[in-house]
């Protein structure tokens, strides 16, 4: 990233700042959800918003996800830009019908007359020792639903930039927050936030020549670590951070794979029916003649998210990524 590094900040701080700036810039932006007001959200992402903008702009709702999202639909119909907080990944499921049947379809069924500019923030993924229903990676469900943008930041700067872009979008966005990165620090200049780029661009976080790791959100840090570890053994890995799952940046991903000839997709959610299958298929369709090996997936197992004392066995770690890279039959180039 070209951001001027000033001081380390956490992803949580960047998200709060993005919400605050969006609310200050546009009175139509309203935040609503469970505990988002006085408490500032269970992860404190909405901290201070109710105090600054009032309970009408940052609203503690009754405890009902379909109701939160359903009322947000009506608010958006009346010209507001609601930003909805779902408390945890698995608690967004009661609202899933609203997502699928209305949020994603309203523009389409009205032939463009009724667009819905709303953002659904969902803390997702594991690695924080949460009990069951607190660690799901639900991105595949949202990816499979046309009419939604699905984005997920992996860096502090992206947390800010992507959230601003999501709120500014005239279409509904599922904004997936990797909750284990909330407190990770990164260099980011909060005084001069990154420019708000359009959604839908992947970025090469590390360039390399021998294989591409394609990843996003919580797995980026793991892939960067794996790439470093691989270097010691003479492997030169490129790492692509997707940032946006829908729309999907075929261009950046394929350009990388054509350069390296090999690819591994890395994510936490299960591999069967998961995002990796889609990505591997796209890469194979577009880069078949450049591939030296099949596109591999390193993903969570196809099990319900495990209890916290076992989650480290489920989550893709550095070793599992290195194993996969080895299976690409990569031969050391001198």
């Amino acid at each position, binding site marked *: 990233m070209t951001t001027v590094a000033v001081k380390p900040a956490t992803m949580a701080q960047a998200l709060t700042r993005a919400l605050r700036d969006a609310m200050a810039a546009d009175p139509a932006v*309203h935040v609503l959800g469970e505990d988002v007001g006085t408490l500032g959200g269970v992860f404190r992402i909405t901290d201070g918003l109710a105090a600054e903008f009032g309970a*009408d702009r940052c609203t503690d*709702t*009754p405890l*009902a996800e*379909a*109701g939160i*999202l*359903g*009322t*947000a*639909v*009506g*608010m*958006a*119909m*009346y*010209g*507001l830009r*609601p930003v909805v907080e779902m408390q945890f990944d698995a608690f967004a499921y*009661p609202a899933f*019908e*609203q997502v699928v*049947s*209305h949020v994603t*379809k*309203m*523009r*389409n*069924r*009205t*032939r*463009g*007359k*009724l*667009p819905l500019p709303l953002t659904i923030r969902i803390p997702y993924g594991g690695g924080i020792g949460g009990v069951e229903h607190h660690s799901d990676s639900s991105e595949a469900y949202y990816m499979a639903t*046309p*009419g939604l*943008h699905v984005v997920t930041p992996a860096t502090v700067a992206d947390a800010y930039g992507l959230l601003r872009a999501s709120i500014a*979008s*005239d*279409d509904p966005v599922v904004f997936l927050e990797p909750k284990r990165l909330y407190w990770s620090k990164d260099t980011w200049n909060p005084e001069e936030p990154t420019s708000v780029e359009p959604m*839908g661009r992947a970025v090469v976080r590390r360039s390399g020549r021998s294989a591409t790791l394609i990843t996003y959100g919580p797995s980026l840090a793991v892939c960067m670590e794996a790439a470093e570890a691989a270097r010691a053994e003479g492997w030169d890995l490129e790492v692509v951070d997707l940032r946006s799952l*829908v*729309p*999907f*940046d*075929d*261009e950046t991903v394929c350009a990388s794979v054509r350069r390296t000839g090999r690819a591994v997709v890395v994510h936490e959610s299960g591999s069967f029916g998961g995002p990796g299958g889609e990505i591997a298929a796209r890469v194979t369709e577009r880069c078949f003649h450049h591939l030296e090996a099949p596109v591999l997936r390193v993903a969570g197992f196809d099990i319900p998210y495990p209890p916290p004392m076992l989650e480290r066995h489920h989550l893709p770690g550095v070793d599992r990524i290195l194993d996969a890279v080895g299976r690409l039959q990569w031969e050391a180039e001198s």
Partner: protein
Amino acid sequence: MTVMEQRGAYRPTPPPAWQPRTDPAPLLPDTEPYRVLGTKAADRADTELLRTLYARLVRGRRYNAQATALTKQGRLAVYPSSTGQEACEIAAALALQERDWLFPSYRDTLAVVSRGVDPVEALTLLRGDWHTGYDPYEHRVAPLSTPLATQLPHAVGLAHAARLKGDDVVALAMVGDGGTSEGDFHEALNFAAVWRAPVVFLVQNNGFAISVPLDKQTAAPSLAHKAVGYGMPGRLVDGNDAAAVHEVLSDAVRHARAGGGPTLVEAVTYRVEAHTNADDATRYRGDAEVETWRRHDPVELLERELTERGLLDEDGIRAAREDAETMAADLRARMNQDPELNPLDLFDHVYAEPTPQLREQRAQLSAELAAEAESETGSASGPQEGGHR
């Protein structure tokens, strides 16, 4: 006696500071549905309003018959008739001001048309050419909702947003008796009550959810009783009495506009015809029941009232029917025209900007259509010219 004092009522032991927020008694619905026609209350009814309601009801009845006929001709994929329920549909819509919003479900085409939506555009969902044929903002009518009760929270959100902006806009949300069992019904009523949102919920209790009768749907004394638990008034009205529906709805709309919060109205009515043209109603109900309700027909109730009071004669009745015939002829003629369709529109309204993936797929369909056109006509006229069916 309030609900809390009833024998066997749930009585929490309150913590010291706890106070019930409202005395539930004024929230409770009457035990009998409210009626105007044929009662003393009719004396104070506005005669102009009664005449208007009558003309609209006769049209509504004819519209239902015409739309049902169009299903037999294959012009509509399906039509859920509201025959027998015209009073609810029309009197409710007429209780709204122009700036108010209607949130209908799939059976509520008559309410939609009563708001001024072009009858043909109101039928696109059922014809199958586009889901919502009308611009929701033009007449402030949300798309007809097919998943039950899911449009109710939208009504709450819109009414809430309007209130936040300082507009005195009311939302009317319509749902069937079966729809009251859905979770979204509960969530919408709860949000509306907590936010004191200017919403009126109208349940058209027409006796059945497809084949399931009300007593298998709920154990509540009435659907209007459900209001009490949310802290809003519940009102029970004879849904076949257009004057009563109009009065109760108007009261509720006024109450909401004045900041009094939401009301739940249950209109007791009956679905005289089958659920849709695809349903066989003889499997779940007998003719006798249907006949009883036919004798309590909304159009006849109003016709009798107006005739007895000298406000309507044979000429008036004939005039209303002729007007309805004209409407039906026009609807028939326009529905018999094939809609102009461009399949490439499918890609234009998924996102504000199509994704790269949709652009590719659009190009694919475009090529397919060009090839199709070429093989059909020998010419290479593109899909943009001339409509496709």
